[in-house]
């Protein structure tokens, strides 16, 4: 927008948004009002003193279509089609819904007006910031009927007053909540009304309070009241989004690192090396997850810098029991794996080659792979449940984890295939009383059993 188009500008402390809008409406102005406060900007288009369009910047866009699916107002396939076609333009998506008969024209208008009301109500509470009014009307696609500024202000001020009452609860329009993982009872027995249940449905650890208000057509202050009630009932918890972002990033880096190690070990050419590579991958991943959990475990949060010894004690208390159970019930070789400084020490497994050789070594390594794989799964599910629960972040991380597990399983199956082939060869040889040198005991790439590795593995080996 050109500076010469600017008719007036100033400080919000000198002239508040309410006064500016009233003044522009009374004088029947046409142009664009930009209001900045911190990272947020409100762009309001006026035509002959009436409000024709509004756009908020600096606020993460809410997936209103996804929320409408969650409260059964839209089918997910339709939402997908709308998302693709509207390319993120919510007003256009509403327009399409109205055209398709999935939403009435009056509901569309109501939703558009409601979004304007919420944004203005929020901006009315800005104390610091600047404004500028430009003669030029910013090109903003709007399907909303022009709104009378006075009625918008009246409703927005009423809602702003309601927010003042909520002020003490520390909930803001960007607050994100999620269901507590422990909740398993039927919430209908708690006497919650439909509005409470809708907010509960949308508390998936992803949607901010402001987005919920938009989807449910409930004033933000009302949603905040409901959220406060659900918090009292211990049905939801407030998500620390920045901590969750850090946590997700940290776990992603661990999984990327482990996937890389797994890919590197695919270059091993003998079955024993292959198994040893898997042991290293699994061991590295387990230790990475343990370090991660020592930083992000729920019971260790919010207590400042903790002594290492306390973190170590916590990790060993939490995970040594599952390790012993696995050693007792599934893989006795895990008895040689110990906890040291909050991490597992699996050196005795790795160094087994100094004690045993050949098939016996292979059998021990194989047992260790299966045991460590189970232990790694246990650690991941425990830490995910503890740190993020069944939230959006939790589900996203679970998807990534399953993909990684598929890759690990493929490597394990590769070895199983090799073993199966070797057993068949052995039986065949015994039956025909052939010479034993036909058996595939050497490096895998020098033997007839080489064909048992999948084309993908053979490609990598090449």
């Amino acid at each position, binding site marked *: 927008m050109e500076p010469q188009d600017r008719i007036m500008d100033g400080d919000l402390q000198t002239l508040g948004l309410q006064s500016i809008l009233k003044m522009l409406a009374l004088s029947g102005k046409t142009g664009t009002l930009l209001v900045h406060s911190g990272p947020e900007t409100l762009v309001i288009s006026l035509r002959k003193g009436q409000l024709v369009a509004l756009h908020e910047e600096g606020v*993460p866009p809410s997936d209103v279509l996804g929320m409408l699916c969650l409260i059964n107002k839209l089918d997910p396939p339709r939402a997908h*089609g709308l998302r693709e076609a509207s390319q993120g333009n919510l007003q256009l998506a509403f327009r399409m819904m109205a055209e*398709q008969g999935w939403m009435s024209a009056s509901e569309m208008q109501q939703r558009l007006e409601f979004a304007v009301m919420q944004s203005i109500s929020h901006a009315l509470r800005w104390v610091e910031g600047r404004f500028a009014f430009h003669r030029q009307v910013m090109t903003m696609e709007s399907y909303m009927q022009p709104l009378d500024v006075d009625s918008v202000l009246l409703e927005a001020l009423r809602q702003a007053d309601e927010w003042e009452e909520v002020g003490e609860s520390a909930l803001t329009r960007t607050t994100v909540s999620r269901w507590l993982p422990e909740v398993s009872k039927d919430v209908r027995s708690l006497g919650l009304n439909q509005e409470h249940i809708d907010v509960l449905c949308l508390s998936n650890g992803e949607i901010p309070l402001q987005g919920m208000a938009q989807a449910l057509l409930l004033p933000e202050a009302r949603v905040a009241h409901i959220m406060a009630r659900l918090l009292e009932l211990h049905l939801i918890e407030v998500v620390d989004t920045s901590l969750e972002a850090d946590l997700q990033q940290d776990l*992603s880096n661990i999984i*990327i690192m482990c996937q890389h190690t797994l890919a590197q070990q695919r270059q091993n050419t003998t079955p024993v090396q292959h198994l040893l590579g898997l042991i290293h991958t699994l061991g590295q991943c387990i230790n990475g997850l343990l370090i991660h959990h020592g930083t992000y475990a729920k019971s260790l949060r919010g207590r400042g810098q903790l002594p290492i010894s306390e973190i170590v004690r916590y990790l060993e208390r939490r995970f040594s029991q599952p390790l012993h159970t696995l050693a007792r019930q599934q893989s006795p070789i895990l008895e040689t794996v110990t906890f040291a400084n909050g991490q597992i020490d699996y050196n005795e497994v790795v160094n087994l080659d100094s004690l045993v050789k050949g098939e016996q070594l292979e059998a021990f390594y194989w047992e260790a792979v299966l045991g460590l794989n189970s232990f790694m799964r246990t650690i991941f599910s425990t830490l995910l449940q503890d740190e993020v629960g069944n939230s959006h972040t939790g589900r996203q991380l679970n*998807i990534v984890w399953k*993909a990684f597990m598929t890759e690990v399983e493929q490597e394990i199956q590769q070895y199983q295939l090799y073993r199966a082939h070797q057993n068949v060869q052995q039986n065949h040889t015994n039956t025909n009383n052939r010479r034993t040198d036909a058996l595939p005991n050497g490096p895998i790439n020098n033997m007839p059993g080489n064909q048992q590795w999948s084309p993908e593995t053979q490609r990598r080996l090449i």
Partner: protein
Amino acid sequence: MVEPTVLVVDDSPTVRKIVQMTLQREHIRVITASDGLSALTSVADEIPAVILLDIQLPRMDGYHICQIIRKNLQFRQIPIIMLSGKDGLFDKMRGRLSGSTEYLTKPFDSVELVQTVKKHLVDWQSRMPVRNQDMRPRLRRRG
């Protein structure tokens, strides 16, 4: 209002999912391909704003895909970030010679990934052909 699209080409489902999750958190739309042929199909269909391309892929390697894209007049402007487990000078040189814009070494840090992608998303709309501007007819066809 239009979201940029990033194409991730990697044969590892883990890498594809992680990159998808990381970039979606930044409101970047992500599409994926697991091999060279489907990558080229996705480039033609979706015209991504940035391509993240693994080097070791089944059937056709990343260098080859990069060369094909660079030879196409319509798509040659798309930034290509190579992803590789090899960080030797020779590999980086080979990537650059085949036309890649940048080189990320695996295992990459997710912050580094986001920063690199965002760097190449600046002015992405100016590189986009016109045909992606209005997608409304597609919805009508789907009914």
